[in-house]
């Protein structure tokens, strides 16, 4: 328990004949902002899915605070303090912003199933406390005026913030962000940088995938670079920028991306 460490050892995930993640090992230490980068289709999101329990990797080990979490279900992993956002935002789109954020309080709430049928003073207090917490997050993410707005009617950038607020509502130890800057404009990206730093201020470890290299170089402490499911490099942003393998992978892939 001493260290909030996430250690992946030889994680391999296959889809039929395709090896999406190939013997990946990496170590995220407590308090880091850790980046995973790589060209499209490199297997980054698959890695996240393996960590968060959406997929179960065929081989290897995913260890969190010394506990093996490979094979656990997503909600069990959330209960251990790891929570994520999605590359394609997945909000509860008909529900209000406040309700969306409230979903993150689910595992923190002390209510039992019977309280849904018959409330008690204790459950009312718990309800109130959790809504207060939602209020704080609304404020933190500057979403107060949208509290009652259904998320589907919000602009994209706001939806990203709601999704992060929802994840933070869990009071996570490790926050996993899957392309948090995708679809954001320059202003919003700048805000995002501040947000990520202030999340770290709260003592939360951040693991992120991002394509915006400027952002990655600015915020991360340490990086792993994937290509075709394999780790081709790891190191600090400065080291990675100089790594010839990385440059080749990116330049090679950009040609293909151009179409």
């Amino acid at each position, binding site marked *: 328990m001493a260290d909030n460490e996430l250690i992946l050892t030889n994680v391999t995930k296959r889809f039929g004949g395709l090896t999406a993640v190939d013997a990946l090992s990496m170590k995220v230490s407590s308090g880091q902002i850790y980046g995973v980068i790589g060209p499209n289709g490199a297997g980054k999101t698959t890695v996240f899915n393996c960590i*968060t329990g*959406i997929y179960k990797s065929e081989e290897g080990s995913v260890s969190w605070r010394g506990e093996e979490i490979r094979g656990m*279900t*997503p*909600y069990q992993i*959330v*209960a251990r303090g790891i*929570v*994520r956002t*999605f590359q394609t935002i*997945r*909000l*509860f*789109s*008909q*529900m*209000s912003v*406040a*309700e969306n954020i*409230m*979903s*993150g309080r*689910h*595992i923190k*709430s002390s*209510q039992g*199933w019977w*309280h*849904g*049928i*018959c*409330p008690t003073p204790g*459950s009312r207090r718990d*309800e*109130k406390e959790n*809504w207060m917490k*939602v*209020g704080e997050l*609304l404020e933190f993410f500057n979403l*107060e*005026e949208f*509290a*009652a707005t*259904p998320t589907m009617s919000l602009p994209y950038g706001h939806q990203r913030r709601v999704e992060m607020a*929802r*994840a933070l509502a*869990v009071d996570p130890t490790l926050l996993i962000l899957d392309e948090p800057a995708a679809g954001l404009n320059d202003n919003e990206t700048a805000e995002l940088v501040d947000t990520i730093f202030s999340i770290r201020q709260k003592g939360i470890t951040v693991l992120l995938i991002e394509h915006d290299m400027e952002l990655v170089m600015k915020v991360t402490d340490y990086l792993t670079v994937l290509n075709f499911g394999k780790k081709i490099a790891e190191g600090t942003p400065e080291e990675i920028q100089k790594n010839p393998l990385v440059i080749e992978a990116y330049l090679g892939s950009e040609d293909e991306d151009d179409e």
Partner: protein
Amino acid sequence: MKKLSIVSLLVFLLVMAILPHLLDPRWQTVAVTFLVFSVVALSQDIVLGKAGMFNMGQAMFFGMGAYVTAILNSHFGWPIMATIPVAIIAPVLVGIVLAAPIVHLRGDYLLVVTIGFNIVFVQVLINNLGGVTGGPNGIFGIDPLRLFGFELSSQVAIYYYAFAVLLLTLAIMINLDKSKVGRALHYLREDPLAAESIGINTRLYKIFAFGLGAGIAGLAGSVFATQYSAVSPEAFEFIQSVLFFSIVLVGGSSIPGVLIGVFVMFVLPEIFREFSTWRFFVFGFAMILTMILRPRGIWPATFGKIPKFLIKEPKNGG
């Protein structure tokens, strides 16, 4: 909108509270039927409307409650009062056991499987399994409800009994929306993967919804058995489940919507009795038309049940 629903709910409850004194016995019976079917439709709303599971077997749980009361009373001599808890718990347990292996199935498959449960259930009743269900004719001569030495056998008494059950159900529905479990059901309906990824054990809550829905339907069944002092299999055929399913969706899976749906489906035909052969033909068209004009139902459920202190005016220049 929110004020409107509260006011209309209060007016509705007030009217319902004095209604039996304004009606002749035939319409009192219709009114009781309305109450009982409203409870079943609301229980279906928990499973279908809130949790978003395509359950087309709710009449089975309704029937199970009715038969539990009937069997325990007529074969084992239990007083009706004592059968009520069993009429709730038995469907809950059956609901949990049946739901556990199937809740993960895709919507349409769940629908077919629950139809299957309903059909098998009716087959069990007709084939008189264990010699207690009375076969195709069902069970007659169920005792009236006795409470504190009073015999609640008049239609008015049964009306108030059913009304109390409806109030209980409404209270549960409203509490549910203000609780962790109720929200969990909404979340998993909207996006099961996102719900799971935010820490919600979706499977558990799906089973919970089934169990709760089954329990409420079972209670309604017990009232139904007491009302007619008889039960027979055809009242629980899966066509009834289809009707409850449609009522919830046509209504818009909100409380007023579901009540309107029950009224249209079960009370209107009593008013237009001479057209009874046309009933389903007309309803079929009405269902298609409603869905085309209002795909989310007549009175769609609204979200945003959040405490007032969170709702803030837009900031100036913000």
